[in-house]
């Protein structure tokens, strides 16, 4: 019988980051605040 040399479609999992990673980023963004002080910028992570 002829062999099929076609690979199955790429795993969908390999095309998207995990949901936790996205959530982490959104939380990181919410927690990060930039404080302006006399032309200087400070970053603060408020968790």
């Amino acid at each position, binding site marked *: 019988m002829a062999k099929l040399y076609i690979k199955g479609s790429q795993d969908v999992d390999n095309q*998207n*980051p995990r949901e936790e990673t996205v959530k982490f*980023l959104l939380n990181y963004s919410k927690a990060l605040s*930039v404080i302006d002080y006399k032309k200087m910028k400070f970053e603060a992570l408020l968790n």
Partner: protein
Amino acid sequence: MRQEIITDAQLVSNYIKGEEKALSTLIYRHKQKIYSFIYSKVFDRDLAEDIFQDTFIKVIRTLKLGKYNEEGKFLPWVMRIAHNLVIDHFRKNNRMPKFDNSGEFSIFSVLGDTALNAEKQIIKDQVESDVRRLIEELPEDQKQVLVMRMYNDMSFKEISERTGVSINTALGRMRYALINLRKVVDKHNIVLTN
């Protein structure tokens, strides 16, 4: 009902103004493209995940610090960050080769093939030709010193004799040539690496 699609630029602007939801829309809109780009380079899910995360941490910090300029488009900018992080990863790994703990001894863990393969050779040639083109853009006096020093391997004493300027002037021109090259590389985000 017609659904309004907000552009990336609008979302970025909203996010900078403090609308957190805009970031969520941007991430969900582009996550597949960015993640699969990273995965296609590293072929490791966990590593791709890490680089994806670092990419967006950089994006978030740049936007919040107000350092983002609207010159380019959002997605190509993020892709470039991801691309640079992938390169950083491989560079770091080349410097610190990993030993796997599978128990079996592999001769390749202690022996390395230092010769360039075809792909690396092409990249090297490309980088060298890019550098040549950048050098062509330098002011004549700086270009002259840089070419004599780097390509003709002349000492600064020889350069000063040949060009009729003092050694200090030649050193200064070399310094400015390098500063200017770095500036152009930074400004256009040119990746010169192998």
